[in-house]
């Protein structure tokens, strides 16, 4: 009897010990670049958002598939009495990492901070007139006109503690004119599932689980500590996973995916990213500078654009350049964006003869030559895609001179007004998950904040009017009809030459199963360890 009790005690002791061990689980996370800053409104950049999302939270959040859900706000609506006011009800009982409660004051403060000129998130809040506190748990966002889609933008605006920011003189988002470092660059005070333990930029950031997290119970929160290390070199990053020094790797080089998939101790997850890769060309100019055609612009002829679209063998690019890690497409819109349909996604079949005929009909039986600008350090295999496409256009007689350069040079060419490129590659993500975002940046005539990425010279008054009408149309069915209508026109015009939706892969130890996040901001609070 005694031995049984002793045995039982021993078992009990072991299980509690085991439970203790199971509780403390560190996840070592690596990707190619570090967050640039911890300031929640400082840099609107992928890796920065991905890390900050663990410390700070917004009113709403998207899951890994892009579905909108509640976070710090539990419900929201446009006031029935006033279509220009959004009402957000805050979650009660939420506490910042220092134990102070989240109130409407913090939300108002954070929105005002994000709307300052030095903030990199002000672009999401251009329609906002003011943000006011109604009571401790109610906030009204007043817009300049009706903005039925404002809630989509609230996922990006993270909420920080007002008292903390004021105490540490960090009430402004980072200002480069300031000669000193802003306190919020390396320190943080949010409500998120993880609290900051230490931060060495470009080296290591350690987060530990927030045991007072409001979502405890509704999310697994099994990871007790996150060690985030950027590893820039592809080979080293993969080696670190193979040698077991890290548990979870983003930015897996496509050439290594097959090999990693074959490893029993590892798991690779893949999925589409919220990003489409495509080419744009200047169809608005009277004459191109980089071509060999005098007095006219071949891109202005729709038949030329159609021919170039037909000449691209998208499945070959997917197979050879991307090793299967992409989804060929005929539209510059990722599949989960409002407005996407299967018909729109359809690309024309590759047909070299038909393309040649179209070129001949347009008056270029022998083709022409033109210069293509391409980034070489921004998208997955960007330069190789361009090289492949150049060969395909060569097959129909269009001689393309390829200029590949760093993103810091490439994107400036497109953004300058007038643009300094006549033929270029871009990859575009849609953070609002609505077609309007693509329309307003990529298709609207260049004017002020509209059409800022439209270097094609495409300008259609009718389309412009419809794009603008989308911002204030509150009837969702009517709005969606307009979106479908605009896409039909745009696809028919062949304004861009779409290539594919970029796919993402994550590699991890086999006891993890982290799904690919469409925005490439994995949420480690949802991680569940298998076999425990």
């Amino acid at each position, binding site marked *: 009897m005694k031995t049984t009790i002793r045995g039982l005690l021993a078992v009990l002791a072991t299980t509690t010990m085991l439970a203790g061990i199971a509780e403390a689980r560190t996840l070592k996370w690596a990707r190619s670049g570090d967050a640039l800053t911890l300031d929640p409104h400082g840099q609107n950049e992928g890796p920065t958002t991905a890390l900050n999302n663990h410390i700070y939270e917004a009113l709403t959040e998207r899951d890994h598939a892009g579905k909108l859900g509640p976070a710090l706000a539990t419900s929201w609506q446009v006031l029935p009495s006033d279509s220009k006011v959004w009402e957000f009800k805050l979650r009660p009982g939420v506490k910042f990492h220092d134990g102070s409660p989240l109130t409407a004051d913090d939300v108002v403060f954070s929105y005002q901070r994000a709307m300052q000129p030095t903030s990199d998130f002000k*672009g999401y809040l251009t329609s906002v007139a003011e943000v006011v506190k109604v009571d401790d748990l109610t906030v009204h966002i007043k817009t300049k006109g009706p903005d039925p889609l404002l809630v989509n933008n609230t996922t990006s605006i993270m909420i920080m503690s007002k008292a903390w920011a004021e105490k540490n003189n960090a009430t402004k988002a980072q200002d480069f004119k300031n*000669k000193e470092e802003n306190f919020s*660059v390396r320190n943080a005070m949010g409500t998120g599932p993880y609290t900051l333990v230490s931060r060495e930029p470009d080296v290591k950031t350690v987060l530990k689980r927030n045991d007072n997290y409001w979502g405890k119970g509704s999310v697994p929160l099994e990871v007790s500590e996150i060690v985030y290390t950027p590893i820039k*070199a592809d080979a080293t990053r993969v*080696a670190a996973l193979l040698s077991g020094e890290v548990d979870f790797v983003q930015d897996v080089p496509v050439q290594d995916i097959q090999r990693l998939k074959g490893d029993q101790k590892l798991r690779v997850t893949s999925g589409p990213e919220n990003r489409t890769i495509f080419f744009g060309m200047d169809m608005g100019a009277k004459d191109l500078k980089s071509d060999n055609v005098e007095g006219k612009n071949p891109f202005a002829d729709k038949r030329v654009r159609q021919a170039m679209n037909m000449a691209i063998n998208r499945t070959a690019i997917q197979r050879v350049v991307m090793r299967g890690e992409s989804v060929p497409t005929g539209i510059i819109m990722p599949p989960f964006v409002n407005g996407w349909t299967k018909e729109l996604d359809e690309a024309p079949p590759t047909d070299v003869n038909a393309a040649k005929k179209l070129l001949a009909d347009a008056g270029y039986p022998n083709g022409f030559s033109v210069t293509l600008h391409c980034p070489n350090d921004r998208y997955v295999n960007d330069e190789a895609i361009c090289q492949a496409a150049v060969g395909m256009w060569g097959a129909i007689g269009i001689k393309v001179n390829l200029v590949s*350069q760093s993103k810091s040079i490439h*994107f*400036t060419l497109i953004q300058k007004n007038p643009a300094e490129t006549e033929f270029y590659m871009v990859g575009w993500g849609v953070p609002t998950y609505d077609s309007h975002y693509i329309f307003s940046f990529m298709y609207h005539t260049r004017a*002020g904040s509209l059409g800022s990425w439209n270097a094609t010279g495409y300008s259609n008054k009718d389309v412009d009017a419809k794009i603008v009408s989308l911002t204030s149309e509150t009837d969702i069915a009517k709005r969606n009809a307009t979106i479908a209508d605009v896409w039909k026109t745009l696809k028919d015009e062949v304004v861009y030459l779409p290539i594919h939706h970029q796919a993402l892969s994550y590699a991890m130890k086999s006891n993890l199963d982290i799904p690919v996040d469409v925005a490439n901001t994995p949420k480690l609070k949802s991680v569940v360890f298998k076999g425990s």
Partner: protein
Amino acid sequence: MFAYSIRSIAQGLLVLVAVAFIAFSMFRFVGDPVANMLGQEATLQDRQELSERLGLNDPWPVQFAQFIGNAATGEFGVSYRQARKVSDLIKERLPATVELAVLSALVATFFGVLLGVYVAINRTGFLSNAIMSISLIGVSLPTFLIGIGLIYIFAVELRWLPSFGRGETVKIGWWSTGLLTESGRKSLIMPVLTLAFFQLTLIMRLVRSEMLEVMRADFIRFARARGLGERVIELRHALRNTLVPVVTIAGLQLGSVIAFAIVTETVFQWPGLGALFVNAVQFADVPVMAAYLMFVAAVFVITNLIVDLLYFLLDPRLRTGGRTAKGH
């Protein structure tokens, strides 16, 4: 010697200003930092406002003058990429690079001279031939390949050494060192070997050929005639006379070790200045690039100066030469 030093220092300062000038005129070609600093939603107006705030719209000579003025006081502005003071960043990253570079230089010099003397004395042995063949690999293989090879063998397959980073470091004042912890020392092994390999083979081959040259000289024959032992001749007389060019090369190479560290630091995710620079280039982070280039130039200038002064100690002819030169 004093006048000589002053002259060298003045020349050094001139070199620094020249480097700043060349570097600064090149920054226009690395791209527009503003494009990297703002999200994709930024409007043309936002970009112009930021350019204005950063002073990028000022005329080039104004920007250059400001840079020189600030640099003279050790102030390099705020990093565009990290929004932190560049002087802080440099200070934070310097220990990692210095530790790596100095250890590599020591390893390269020590083993380079040792092996060089060995292969010079035993010209035909099997071991000598093997060493010479391996040294060819060191001269011809690119650094990153050696690094990745080492990672594959020692981190992935054998799992003896960490594949990236510095391990645990200990802070001594503002200096951080990896030498005082086990993981820190383990982390140093592969990067140091990778960085040292090229220099080592270079020094070794140099010592060998110099030594063979010296061994044919008359004074060696006289030394033998005097009946001195072979070891004494080799190590006291021949080696000492071999060392002048070796010190030059090894000293000047310390500068390139720091510059070459860029590749090694990238391969091993070593948090030093080289990695900082690579990130800065991709982001067009001009303040960090400028500060780094000035730093590398300063290292070259200083090592040159030290090498020049070392000559005086090693080569008596220079000392007397200096004195007689005054008579002319």
